[in-house]
Structures are given as structure tokens and as C-alpha cells.
């Protein structure tokens, strides 16, 4: 039966995580916004938490996909559970959430496709993800970093920008092409450990928001890594299944980014409500919206949008938990949350007036932090393209 009344397990996760966000993250939120690039040592308590981990494949057939079970009565599936967790943590601080040890995007990629042998070697490392290049942003199929097999080693050359956790990670999952002429089919991902000769962190970026998160540029100059550091098959197929497989990880991560936007926007809304209540405004969901003070009416509308963002994210995550194809729904959730998270945090600052512009409070920070969520993991525009292609049944050639 379709039923969107959240089971008790949801409230349990929320309460626990909110406590953590409130007591561990909020007190240091401003500190690391100002101390850009400094490692938040307080986050060491998260080390060892298997945020992005997975158990080894026990089956004799190593190629078999890990058998997942649909969540049982009143249980929350892994994706939905992560969504709920992420919202709470980002309510605490979004930049710090991106700095939680061993919870990088690279960890997600490793957890998704690594062999048991690779899991043994990389499973305990903090793994960042390097996709973007100076000339290759949303069009990730056009990357020019190369990987060439020489003897028993891959030799990597190129430059990667916008790598989250660049400084703190132990290793980086690097996207590179093994055959430029093969286009997307030639793109593979490789695990490069820090300290490998020819692999250097060039610099860290200074950003609008999520300053607690260290974003950096890597240079790969004849960087040699073991042959078995490639994730997935090295074979270049004529079809782009491999690339599509990589893009599929986005179906799992996009609802998480959407949930991040829900968390940040909720932080802004909670604070705005608190200040409005102090100023004497009443929130009781009783009066006709037309008869409300403009700020209260707008606050309700923003709260309604927040709820819509959350439900779209939960749906996409729930579908992933139930092994349903959720490419469309994942992009829907990210498109909605990225945009409306940005709008909500902007408006909260405006409603708060001087309290929204001062760095004495965090509202201005949430507005800066939120903006990234409509950009990374696919910009809002890319999400709209994906949605439109899906519902209109146009190929990427037909709808560019």
C-alpha cells in the first residue's frame, strides 16, 4: 500500500543525528567557515563509521551483484536512511558533512564496483573523486586525462579540478580515458593513492561557501599506478555501458545531494521562524494564507516547498532501496532541491534583514553553502535535461 507516513525508525535516525548535528557540528560551523582549508579535527569522532562502506561479496561468484534485500516492515532502507541522515547532518553544517572522514564520493564509487581484493586495499581509505577538468565540466564524457597501460602499470597524465577532500583524502578515484577515440566508452576510473610519484595536489580553491570542505586541483604527470587499480573492467566496448554504469552511481548520490539541500534550507527556515516568533508572529496553520502577514505566508510556502523537496528525495532513495530504476526520479529530486534550496536560503536572509546579512548568525552562510547544491553532482540545468529527455523520450542527440 502506498503509505508516506514515516515509520518510527525514521524518527529514531532523525533524533540521533539531529543531536549529533546540534552538539558536534553547529558549535564549530562558523569556525571552519572562517578557517578555510583547515582540517576539522573534531570530525575524527566519525572515523570508522561505515558511512559509505559495504560488506565484501561473500558469494563464490565474484561477478555477482551483492544481493540486497528490500527493506522489511517498518525498517528503513539504506538509501532512504542515508537521505534522512544527510538532511540532519547538513542541518548542522553542509561543509562539515563533506569533510566527514571516509565518506567521500570516491568511497561511494569503490563501494559500488570494487572487487573484494580492491576492497581489502582501499576499503579503509578516505577516497576523493576526480572527474572535472578545466575544459570538461558537465560534459564529463569529454575528459582528456589519459591512462595508458605500460607493462604492469597504468600511466596517468592530465589535470583534475574541483576535487572535494583533495587535501584530506588518502586516495583519489580519477576518471581518465584509455582510448580517446572511443569517446565515453573509453572512460575508466582508477584509484590513485596519495604519495604516488607524479601525483601532486597543485592548490586548494577559495570558495563562496562550504569553506570547511577542501576543494583542490591535482596534476597527474606520468603517474604510474598498479594495473589492478582500475575500477571495473579495462575492456573498451563499442557501447558506452561502462560510462553509463558510472553515471548510474549518480542515481544513488543525487537524492543525497537533494537531501543535503533539504537540510541546509531547513536550517535557514528554522532560524527564520525562531526570529519571527520572537518578533511576535504566530505559526498555527489555521488561517487562510490570504489573511496572513506576508512573511508568515511566505514562510509557509517555503516550508511546503521544503516538504516537496524532501518527498521527492525520499521517493528516489526509496526506489533505489527497492531496486527500481530511478534515473528520472533522482534527477527530479536534485532539480527541485538544488533550485529551491537556493531560493529558500536567499529569501530567509532577506526576511531576516540585518540578521540575515550579518556574519554574527549563520543565515548568510547557509545561503552561500546552499548554492553549491544546485551545481555539483550535475547542475540544475543538467538535471532538467535528463528529466526532459526521460519524459519526452528524446535521446541526448535530439535534445542537447
Amino acid at each position, binding site marked *: 500500500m502506498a503509505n*508516506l507516513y514515516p515509520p518510527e525508525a525514521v524518527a529514531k535516525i532523525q533524533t540521533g543525528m539531529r543531536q549529533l548535528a546540534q552538539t558536534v557540528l553547529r558549535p564549530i560551523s562558523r569556525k571552519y567557515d572562517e578557517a578555510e582549508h583547515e582540517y576539522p579535527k573534531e570530525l575524527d569522532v566519525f572515523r570508522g563509521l561505515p558511512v559509505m562502506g559495504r560488506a565484501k561479496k561473500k558469494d563464490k561468484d565474484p561477478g555477482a551483484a551483492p544481493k540486497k534485500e528490500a527493506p522489511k516492515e517498518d525498517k528503513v532502507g539504506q538509501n532512504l536512511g542515508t537521505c534522512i541522515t544527510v538532511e540532519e547532518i547538513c542541518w548542522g553544517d553542509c561543509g562539515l558533512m563533506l569533510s566527514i572522514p571516509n565518506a567521500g564520493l570516491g568511497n561511494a564509487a569503490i563501494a559500488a564496483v570494487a572487487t573484494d581484493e580492491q576492497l581489502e586495499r582501499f576499503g579503509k581509505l578516505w577516497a576523493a573523486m576526480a572527474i572535472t577538468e578545466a575544459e570538461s565540466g558537465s560534459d564529463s564524457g569529454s575528459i582528456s586525462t589519459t591512462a595508458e597501460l605500460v607493462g604492469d602499470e597504468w600511466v596517468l597524465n592530465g589535470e583534475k579540478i574541483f576535487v572535494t577532500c583533495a587535501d584530506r583524502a588518502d586516495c583519489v578515484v580519477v576518471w581518465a580515458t584509455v582510448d580517446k577515440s572511443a569517446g565515453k566508452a573509453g572512460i575508466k576510473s582508477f584509484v590513485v593513492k596519495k604519495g604516488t610519484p607524479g601525483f601532486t595536489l597543485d592548490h586548494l580553491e577559495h570558495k563562496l561557501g562550504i569553506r570547511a570542505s577542501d576543494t583542490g586541483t591535482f596534476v597527474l604527470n606520468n603517474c604510474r599506478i598498479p594495473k589492478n587499480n582500475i575500477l571495473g573492467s579495462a575492456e573498451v566496448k563499442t557501447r558506452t555501458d561502462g560510462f553509463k554504469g558510472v553515471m548510474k552511481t549518480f542515481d544513488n548520490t543525487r537524492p543525497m545531494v537533494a537531501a543535503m539541500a533539504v537540510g541546509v534550507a531547513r536550517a535557514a527556515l528554522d532560524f527564520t521562524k525562531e526570529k519571527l516568533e520572537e518578533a511576535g508572529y504566530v505559526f498555527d496553520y489555521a488561517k487562510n*494564507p490570504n489573511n496572513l502577514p506576508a512573511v508568515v505566508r511566505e514562510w509557509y510556502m517555503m516550508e511546503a516547498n521544503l516538504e516537496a523537496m524532501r518527498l*521527492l528525495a525520499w521517493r528516489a532513495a526509496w526506489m533505489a532501496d527497492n531496486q527500481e530504476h530511478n534515473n528520472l526520479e533522482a534527477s527530479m529530486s536534485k532539480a527541485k532541491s538544488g533550485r529551491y534550496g537556493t531560493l529558500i536560503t536567499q529569501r530567509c536572509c532577506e526576511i531576516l534583514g540585518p540578521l540575515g546579512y550579518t556574519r554574527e548568525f549563520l543565515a548568510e552562510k547557509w545561503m552561500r553553502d546552499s548554492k553549491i547544491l544546485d551545481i555539483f553532482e550535475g547542475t540544475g540545468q543538467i538535471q532538467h535535461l535528463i528529466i*526532459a529527455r526521460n519524459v519526452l523520450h528524446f535521446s541526448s542527440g535530439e*535534445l542537447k
Partner: protein
Amino acid sequence: MFSFELDKEQKMIRNSYAELVKKLVADTIHDQDEAGALDPKTIQKAWELGVSVSAVPEACGGMGMPDSPMQSAICLEELAYGDASFAIAVTTPSLFISPLLRYGTEAQKNACLPPVCGETYVPATLAMCEPDLAFDAASPKCRAEKKNGAYILSGVKCFVPKAKDAKYILVAASTDQGPQLFIVSADNPGLKVGDREKTLGLYALDMYRVTLENCKVSAADKLGGDNGCDYADVLARSRVGLAAVAAGISRASFEFARDYAKKREQFGAPIGTKQSVAFMVAEMAYEADAIRLMCWKAASMLEAGKPAVREAYLARMYAGEMAMKIGDYGVQVLGGHGYIRDYPQERYYRNARGIAILEGVATV
């Protein structure tokens, strides 16, 4: 269990309404809207599917099933996917039956339910809206004064669906104990059903101005007797109903725009291959879904027996805003054709405007 997917039974019910809409409404609704009248035979057929009476005890003419706001929401969406006027007309008796079922005294249920829960569609309705700029369903201007053990109702109501043929009208009126509902029989001399309302949308639905002048009802006609009813719950359910109607209108508008954008060629290619059009269609797609999810969330709360005042309020507010946006985009995607009444987009657009304005015209 928490789930975004309809189960077998819910799908079956949805499909039965969808089929009826496809067979009997889709091709004729344009003419019915233009004529300002719905085909009574089609209403009767939809009535027979039974959503209004499924929770009514068998003794009172119903099916004796558990109350299911989710099921009502699913049916309303399907009906409204065909047409909002049609959805409201078919389920108008629910506006009377549903509050009676939950809050009526045994005597009220036994007396009033059987006449309107039979095989034949017999309208009974709810008078909630009032013709006033500052109208607020939470505090109606219509008054119910207690006098010598009876109530005297006085006030003006508007947009009362099917009032002219209604056997009973449930009237929302303020008392010293806050707003309550009163059962008024069609033959009450203090009840005057006035002219049919002329509205921006919902052409096919007959709604009326209703005047209550020195309208005397006995104390036993206050819904729920001495205890009264949970008026906030009645409002909440009506808001979830409106959100469900909005979900239906919005899906219809989205699908029409989607199909049009795929077929209509300009500059040598379908207009949907242009991002400016494609992005509007994409936004319509997820906002239509979001309206439904908001509606389902509130309906699920009600189904679980939880108070859903906040969820219903937000769902309706969201539905009002986004159905309007979707209707707007729907007309825009069709360009000039969207403005022509031969196409359904302008009807969706007009009907969508009602979601944020009307109160008490649909319920779960």
C-alpha cells in the same frame, strides 16, 4: 509499511476510475464544459464505483469498508485527470457523507445516510465558502445562534456544489464554541438556493449561492450533537481533497504539454527539442509529482489516524501554487493554441485557479 507504490488493490481501484474517465469523459468533456453541464449518466456510472460510500456501514447503504483517505485521494486524482468539474460533481455527496460518518450521532447517521448512499446518485453537499475578500474557512461569518434549544443560521454561502438538487446541505457556521457544521434539509424554509455561480473555471460544475435567513434547525441537527465535530479535521480532509484534485489537473496538463511538445514541429524539429520548452515540461513533470506526494503524505497521516492539520494545510497551499504554475506552463508550451478553447490547456489553467481559492468542495 512505508511505500511510494500503490498495492494491487489500490491499483485496481485507480484503474477502474481511469478506465471510466478514458471511456466516458476524455472525449466529451470539452463539450460538457462548454455546455456548462455534465452528463448525469456518466456521473451515475462513476458514482457506482463507490468511493463516496465505501466506508459507510452496510446498514446505511454503504460497503462497510475501512475509511481510507489514501483511496479517496487516488480516486479523486483519477477523476480530476479527466476533469475537475467532473471529479467534484461525482464526489459532492462525500462532502456530506464523510463528516457525517465520522462525527454524526447514531441518529443522524441512521436518518441522513441511507437516503444519499443508495445505488442512485443523490446529491448532498457542504456549504463552506462565503463571498467575501477576507473569507477564511477557519472562521466563517455565517452564524449559528442558539435560541430556545434550536439554532438560527444566518449568512451567505457561495460556490456550493450541487446545492440546487441536494437533499441535505451541511452548513459551516460559527458558534460561541467555534465553527461547527449543521445539517440543513433542502426543504428548510430558511434556506434559499440562489442563482448558479458564474466562475472563471469549472464551467461544467453547477455551484450555487446559498442564503440562510432565519434558518432554524434543531439542536439535534448540529453535527455530532452536543459534542459537535472536529471542524479542523473536516477542513484538513477537504484540503487534502483539493490537493488530490490539483494532482489530477496537473498531471493532465503536463501530459498534454509533453505530447504536444513532442509532435509540434517548428524550425524543422519538435519544439520539445529546444531547452526552453523542454525545461518547462521537465518542471511540470516533477511539480505534478510533488503535488501528489504532498497529498499522499497528508492522506497517509490521516489514514494512520494521526492529526494532519499542518500537512493538509501545506499540501493544499503547495497544490494551489504549483497547479497554477503547471497550468500556466501548459498554456505557454502550446503558444497560441494553448489560448484556444478547442485545446484543453486553457481549461486546466482556469480550473487550477480554484485550488487555492475554493474550500470544502472535495474531501478524502
